[in-house]
């Protein structure tokens, strides 16, 4: 995986470079907006991590220019502002995801994985499978080991999102944003209760458990 990081804050950059190296990604780093745009346009990258505020040319400007020239590389915005209008502006400019500083590296990593995955699956799928769990997206039916499992509509969407990102860590914020479609900050971990309900339906009477809790990060569904 090749990633370009455009970030002017030295410490954040160092820290991200170190973290990304540990996950096995090859990362180039540029601290200036204009240089970043040239680098992004010239190199073959799987994903871009772009800070909103940059010297030279700001992040939104970089992405707008890239998109205008037909470059479709997934972009993850970083921002210290963290307001919805900023987020909307970033996504409208062609960003794919938006992460507010400060963030845990695990959150960034989870989102980056999700972005890369999104880039790959072009054809719409009608059936998803993890181990012996099957989801029929057209009939909206779920079976495990051939036995039908009844899910509420929201549980179905939750499971679908987890299965689509099988093998990847999915954070609680990602679930709130993607499954519930609200950008907000719950005071309590409401998501955990939904996960435990879902777990009760898809894992309780089966072996091995598919839905795993990644401590301090989020959840992951994984076959065997």
């Amino acid at each position: 995986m090749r990633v370009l990081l455009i970030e002017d804050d030295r410490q954040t950059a160092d820290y991200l470079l170190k973290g990304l190296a540990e996950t096995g990604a090859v990362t180039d780093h540029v601290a200036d907006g204009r240089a970043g745009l040239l680098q992004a346009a010239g190199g073959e990258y799987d994903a871009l991590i772009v800070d909103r505020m940059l010297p030279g040319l700001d992040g939104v400007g970089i992405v707008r220019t890239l998109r205008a020239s037909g470059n479709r590389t997934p972009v993850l915005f970083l921002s210290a502002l963290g307001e919805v209008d900023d987020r909307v502006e970033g996504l409208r400019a062609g960003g794919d995801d938006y992460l507010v500083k400060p963030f845990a590296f695990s959150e960034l990593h989870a989102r980056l994985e999700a972005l890369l995955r999104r880039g790959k699956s072009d054809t719409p799928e009608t059936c998803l499978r993890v181990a012996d769990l099957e989801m029929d997206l057209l009939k909206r039916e779920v079976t495990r080991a051939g036995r039908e499992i009844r899910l509420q509509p929201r549980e179905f969407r939750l499971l679908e999102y987890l299965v689509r990102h099988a093998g990847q860590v999915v954070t609680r914020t990602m679930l709130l944003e993607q499954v519930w479609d609200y950008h907000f900050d719950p005071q309590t971990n409401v998501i955990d209760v939904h996960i435990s309900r879902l777990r009760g339906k898809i894992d309780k009477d089966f072996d091995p458990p598919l839905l795993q809790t990644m401590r301090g990060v989020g959840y992951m569904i994984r076959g065997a």
Partner: protein
Amino acid sequence: MSEAWHPPSALRVRAANTLRSSTFRLAVLYMLLLGVSVGILMAFLYWSTAGYMDRQTAATIEAEIRGLAEQYRRRGLPGLSSVISERVARDPVGSNVYLLVDDNLERLAGNLDRWPNEFPDSEGWIRFRLRERGPDRAEEHAARGQVFLLRGGLRLLVGRDVRDLEATRALILDALAWGLAITAALALLGGWLMSAGVMRRLETINQTAGEIMAGDLSRRIPLDGSGDDFDELAANLNRMLERIEQLMVGVRQVSDNIAHDLRTPLTRVRTKLELLCTELDGCESARSLAAETIADAEEMLATFNALLRIARIESGARRAAFACVDLRPLTEDLAELYEPLAAEKGQSLTLRVEGPARVMGDRDLLFQALANLVDNAIKYTSPGGAIALAVASQEDGVMVTIRDSGPGIPPHARERVLDRFVRLDDSRSTPGSGLGLSLVKAVLDLHQASIALGGEADGLLVTVRFRDARQPAA
């Protein structure tokens, strides 16, 4: 909370404002003063014109009587009669009136047929009607005279036809009355125009102040370039606003700097602890210690983020992104999201939506605010309790209520809990930063919605009212 709130029509408000305005009252006072002054002036004018003519007439009559009395004293009745006849003959028009009668009111001399019925006043002055024998009709007009008693029971009446005088007097009175009326009308009109002008300028200032209070700090009061005292006031207010805005920007800058300077290292601490956690694979006690430290760092970050969020929401910048939000699906999502949490505590969470529930706002912030309220209700209600969420369309907006069966909040503390970091003593043990309700308050203020905490011993009732947001037709 007030009951149904009816917006009075703008026109009625404007009229009431004009009447209540100090400039209008000043104008009315000014008009009264002017009216009284003009009245006094007119009275003087009347006295010095019509009054002068009256006094002239009286003086002539008195002089004539004195002359006639003198004639009588010297030449007796025949002398007086001849003088009277002479004078009557000299005045064919009959504008001078003479009548001499004996004690039986029988005419002895003069050009009047009979003694007038009217009674004279204490000084002998008498007003009577004069009947003029015209060729075909009898005409009556006013006359004024003085009665004089002569020795031997004789009475002498000398008078003047005051028809022309009366006409002149009426003319003067008419002119004066019109003058007074026109003065009053002009004063009223001038006062109204003056107060309307002042009102308009004050209105501009008030309107700008309102917009600024609503969060748009960049607004300034327009100057009209006349350099008058209103312009000076506006310029001074603008300078003051400039200063306030600078300070506000300064505060926000500090907030952003704090966000940038402190949150980032705190995050690094958190991530390094995470790395430490993975490297401490063997030693379980050190691992759990690191995990606890991560939780602490997260709590600090959460408090910090919440504070900054409140500050940014209060700055009102997000109002630019307002759109029409339907509270029906929003509360349905909310109830669906929190129902399992309530169910886990054995509580029931119900939702009832009546009528359309569209408001202008920020969908995510509204969700955040209502989620905090529902979260609190679940947190403070004991297991087995009930939480009821209701959305009702009202004449003047939308009302959202959240009722729980928890311990409630004592009346004296209800205002206070909306402040930052305020936590009631018996809730210190539950997790939370004390910022949840402040965030709710900030979001609702941004939406110009009100929040009221009520309810009795049977639980807390939170009422949120959204004013009619000029709902666009669906």
